[in-house]
C-alpha cells in the first residue's frame, strides 16, 4: 500500500462512497420498479427495509452521501479556487469536522428509532 497523505485517502474514500451510492441507486430504481406488479408485491418487498440490518445500512448510506458531498466541495475548491490547491490539507480536516458535526446527531436520531 502506497503511504499517501490526506489527498490520497480523501480520494480513496471518494471512490468507495461514490461506487456505494451508485449501487444503492440501482437497488432503489429496481425496488421502485416493482410497483408495476401492484401494491401488494411492492409493500411485501419494501417491508424488508424495516429490518434492523437495512436500518444500519441506511445510516451507512447517509454517511457515504454526506462524505461524498463534502469532499465534492473540497474537489471543487481545489479545481476552481486558486488557493484551494495549496490548502487542500486544511480543507480536508475542516471537512472531517463538518462531517462529524452533521453525521453524529443524524445517526443517533436514526438509530434511536430502530
Amino acid at each position, binding site marked *: *500500500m*502506497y*503511504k*499517501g*497523505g*490526506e*489527498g*490520497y485517502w480523501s*480520494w480513496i474514500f471518494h471512490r468507495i462512497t461514490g461506487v456505494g451510492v451508485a449501487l444503492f441507486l440501482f437497488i432503489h430504481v429496481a425496488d421502485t420498479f416493482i410497483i408495476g406488479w401492484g401494491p401488494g408485491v411492492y409493500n411485501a418487498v419494501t417491508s424488508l427495509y424495516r429490518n434492523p440490518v437495512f436500518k444500519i445500512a441506511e445510516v451507512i448510506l447517509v454517511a457515504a452521501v454526506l462524505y461524498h458531498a463534502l469532499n465534492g466541495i473540497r*474537489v471543487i475548491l*481545489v*479545481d*476552481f479556487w486558486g488557493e484551494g*490547491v*495549496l490548502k*487542500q490539507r486544511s480543507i480536508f480536516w475542516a471537512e472531517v469536522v463538518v462531517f462529524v458535526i452533521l453525521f453524529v446527531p443524524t445517526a443517533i436520531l436514526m438509530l434511536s428509532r430502530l
Partner: protein
Amino acid sequence: MKVKLRIKRFNPQKDRKPYWQEFEVEAEKTDRVLDALHQIRWYQDGTLGFRRSCAHGICGSDAMLINGKNRLACKALFADLGDYVTVEPLRGLPVLKDLIVDMEPFFAAYRAVKPYLINNDQPPLKERLQSPEERARFDDTTKCILCAACTTSCPSFWVNRDYLGPAAIVNAHRFIFDSRDQAAEERLDILASRDGVWRCRTIFNCTDACPRGIQVTKAIEEVKRAIMYAKV
C-alpha cells in the same frame, strides 16, 4: 547504529518473480539510504542493482519507493526513517533489475509535450527579455530534475500507463506560461487529449513525493484552467 534494509529484488534473467531480501548495515542517523545501498553493493552483495549519479539530489537518478513513499535515496535520512527500512523500485515502470526501472516510457511522455522553447520570430541580437513577474509565473516548474517520483506515485498512472503523468505536465507548464514561448496552444492541445491533464484526480501523491518541493498539483490545475478558459 545497525539498520536493516528490506529490499525488493528481481533479475529478469534469473528470477521468475520478485523476492524480498534483508541486509544489515552499520549506519549513522545522518546517513542516507543511498549510503546503505553503497555499503551493500561494495561490501556485501555486488549484484545489487540501483542507479545514482550525483548523490546530492540534483540528477534525479535514484528515486525509489522507500518505506512506502517515493523519495530520492540520496535525500532519505535514517533519522527520519528509523532502523528498519523497506526499499522497492518505482511503480508503474518495467523493472530492469532490482531497483532500476526502465525510464523510457517516462521520457517518451516528457518528449511528447515539446519541453523546449518554441519561438519562430527572428532571434534578437541579445537575450530575449522578460520581466521578473513574467519569469516568476513559471519559476516553480523550472526546478524539475525528471526523477519520476511524481509520475510513479500517481494511482491514475498505475492503472493507465498512457497517461502522460505529472512530470510531463510540470515540464509543459514550464513553457506554456513562459512569455518568450509561442507554442502554448500546441501543448495545451496535447494535454487536453484523453491521456492528458483530465486523468488527474487531484490525489496529491505527486506533490507529496516531489523531492524538489514543486507544487505539482497546482501546476496541473493551472494547465487544466488554461485549457478550460482557453487562456494562458
